[in-house]
């Protein structure tokens, strides 16, 4: 940074003009320094989570309070803290800048920009730990948050203010679901916050570029605490993200926040706890690891006076073990989970959502009538299909009804497949599910089913805009529209020409 001489002189004069303060600062002396952690003797009145300033310019947060000393985690690993250095109390907890100017920006866990687009002028400075909304303040989750992913919106619907866990092994498309959801929020009046915890910088750069290319960065704030950063930053990042989300929520806006991922967050907290010599418990995590995530996710929710925070935390499992410590904790905290299956992913079913194990506990109330009508029996049909599919593996001869069920199930699985970065609006989803429900895919080859339904949705949109808009406005499909759609579907079936198989070329 280039410093102008005039700046320096004016600042110097200004600081000398200030009268000496009357009160004494409360300080402590650094007696022990470790890996991003130090022990300070003194600071007798320091409180838990208080921000401490070191004489050398570094800052830290109090994590342990002992009789004669406190343990402090350092915020900046690049500024050296030496033994016998003085540490001063600030009297406040760590605060982060928040504001509208953060939209479209990439920041670190301290709210500082890291995208080389200049400084961000904050509207407010807020403490990163805030009280969760009370029961009185909370409203019911009754408005749908569309993800644009047909399998999610139809079978595991997410409501605004819900906390839905995305869980799965590595490379099963967890982040892809989250990113698709962000991309789908374009023109939906939803502010998105993407918190990257302990991920590689290259992954984050790719995600940011993708959001930028799709015009999604304008309504998104990206918070990064990559794997190379200090564990404290990884620990703080989700709280900072949530604080920024709360700023928008308090303005009556709907916010979607993605924590990618909380397994790394728990690992960072475990590292901190072990360095603080706290007693390790199951899987060496400290006893308060549940509280770590519950206090974060409880801050999500819908406020009756307007505004909501929808949280999509991501958790990585090891070898499909959803009964490990952190996954079970998160499953119990959240209002449902989307479970991604490696087997399905390898079979080419993407998004690889295991619809039998995935659940949305409150999203049903937020689902639109139209989608509800179209998916009444879909979950059951899929369950029966998978059961029958296992049975058919034995080579048993199946009756006609069972064979029909198998064919129908295969079609359902096929239409639930969706390419990455392709999202469907709510009406398109209704039309796709309508084609399946009303058996218009019976004479279509399985591999052509996706083409048929997408073309059908586009056909209705372009040729019958009145019906399309009616569904969009009423969010329902009444009997009259249903009859009309049947007519349109019959008409389209005659017109449908399957595109040539490009693989043959």
């Amino acid at each position, binding site marked *: *940074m280039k*410093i102008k001489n005039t700046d*320096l002189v004016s*600042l*110097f004069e200004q*600081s*000398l003009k200030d009268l*000496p*303060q*009357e*009160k*004494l*600062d*409360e*300080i*402590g*002396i650094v007696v022990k320094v470790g890996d991003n952690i130090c022990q300070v*003797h*003194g*600071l*007798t009145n320091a409180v838990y989570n208080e921000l401490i300033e070191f*004489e*050398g*310019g570094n800052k830290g947060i109090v994590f342990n309070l002992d*009789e004669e000393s406190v343990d402090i985690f350092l915020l900046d690993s690049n500024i050296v803290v*030496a033994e016998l*250095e*003085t540490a*001063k109390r600030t009297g406040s907890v760590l605060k982060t800048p928040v504001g509208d100017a953060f939209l479209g920006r990439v920041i670190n866990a301290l709210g500082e920009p890291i995208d080389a687009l200049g400084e961000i002028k904050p509207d407010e400075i807020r403490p990163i730990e805030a009280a969760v909304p009370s029961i009185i303040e909370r409203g019911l989750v009754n408005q749908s948050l569309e993800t644009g992913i047909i399998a999610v919106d139809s079978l595991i619907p997410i409501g605004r203010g819900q906390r839905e866990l995305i869980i799965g092994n590595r490379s099963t498309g967890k982040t892809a679901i989250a990113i698709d959801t962000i991309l789908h929020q374009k023109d939906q009046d939803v502010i998105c916050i993407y918190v990257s915890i302990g991920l590689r910088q290259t992954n984050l750069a790719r995600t940011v570029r993708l959001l930028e290319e799709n015009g999604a960065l304008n309504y998104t704030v990206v918070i990064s605490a990559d794997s190379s950063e200090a564990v404290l930053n990884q620990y703080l990042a989700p709280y900072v993200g949530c604080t920024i989300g709360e700023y928008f929520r308090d303005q009556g806006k709907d916010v979607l926040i993605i924590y990618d991922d909380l397994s790394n967050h728990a690992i960072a907290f475990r590292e901190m706890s072990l360095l603080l010599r706290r007693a390790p418990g199951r899987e060496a995590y400290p006893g308060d690891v549940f509280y770590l995530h519950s206090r974060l996710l409880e801050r999500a929710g819908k406020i009756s006076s307007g505004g909501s925070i929808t949280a999509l935390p991501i958790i990585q499992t090891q070898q499909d073990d959803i009964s490990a410590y952190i996954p079970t904790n998160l499953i119990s905290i959240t209002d449902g989970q989307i479970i991604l299956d490696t087997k399905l992913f390898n079979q080419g079913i993407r998004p690889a959502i295991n619809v039998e194990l995935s659940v949305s506990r409150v999203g049903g109330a937020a689902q639109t009538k139209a989608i509800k009508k179209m998916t009444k029996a879909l979950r059951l049909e899929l369950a029966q299909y998978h059961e029958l599919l296992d049975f058919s593996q034995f080579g048993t001869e199946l009756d006609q009804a069972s064979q029909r069920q198998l064919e129908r199930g295969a079609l359902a699985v096929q239409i639930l497949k969706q390419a990455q970065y392709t999202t469907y609006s709510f009406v398109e989803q209704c039309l796709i599910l309508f084609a399946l429900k009303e058996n218009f895919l019976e004479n279509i080859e399985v591999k052509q089913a996706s083409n048929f339904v997408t073309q059908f949705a586009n056909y209705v949109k372009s040729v019958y805009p009145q019906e399309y808009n009616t569904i969009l406005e009423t969010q329902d499909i009444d009997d009259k529209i249903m009859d009309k759609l049947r007519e349109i579907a019959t008409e389209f079936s005659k017109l449908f020409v399957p595109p040539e198989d490009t693989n043959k070329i």
Partner: protein
Amino acid sequence: MNNKDIIARKYAKAFLNLYEDQISLEDLDNIRKLEHFFASHKKVIFFLSVPNIQTITKEKLLDELFQRFNLKTLLNPLVHLLSNSKRLFLIDNILTHIKLIYKKRNDITRFTITSSHEMPPQDIKIIEKFLACQTNKTIISTYNIDKKLIAGIRLQSDTLLWEYSIGKQCNTLCKQFDLPCFQKS
């Protein structure tokens, strides 16, 4: 706090219960000097902890040492008690605790007064009064000169700090401009 500290604290408390009113501020300063001596001469404590050496020899060493620091009369009963229970090696820890507990019980705080240039004693007295007024405690001060302050003074105890100096202002400016610290005091 380790076991050694816990035992030493108990001895210190017991000693102060009996002899607290006999300790003056001068004695406290001597105890501090002796504590520094032990910290910089670890071999003395090692000598006291070797079981082969006779207790009389150890006592003689301590007598000589206390004589030098003008603490012989005050600490003699403690040395006898420790030699009887063969715990002479705890003496440095006990002295530390005597100092800490005495300060706590009598509301005494030690401040280091640092200035950029030499100050007349009457100014130091004024500063002590200011500190006593701010802390409501009895103040013991040590005076230092530190050219790094450039101009001004710095008053520091274990838990409190007051500074008004050019050095501090320079450091604040460096922080504002994201530069490495100008000078650590």
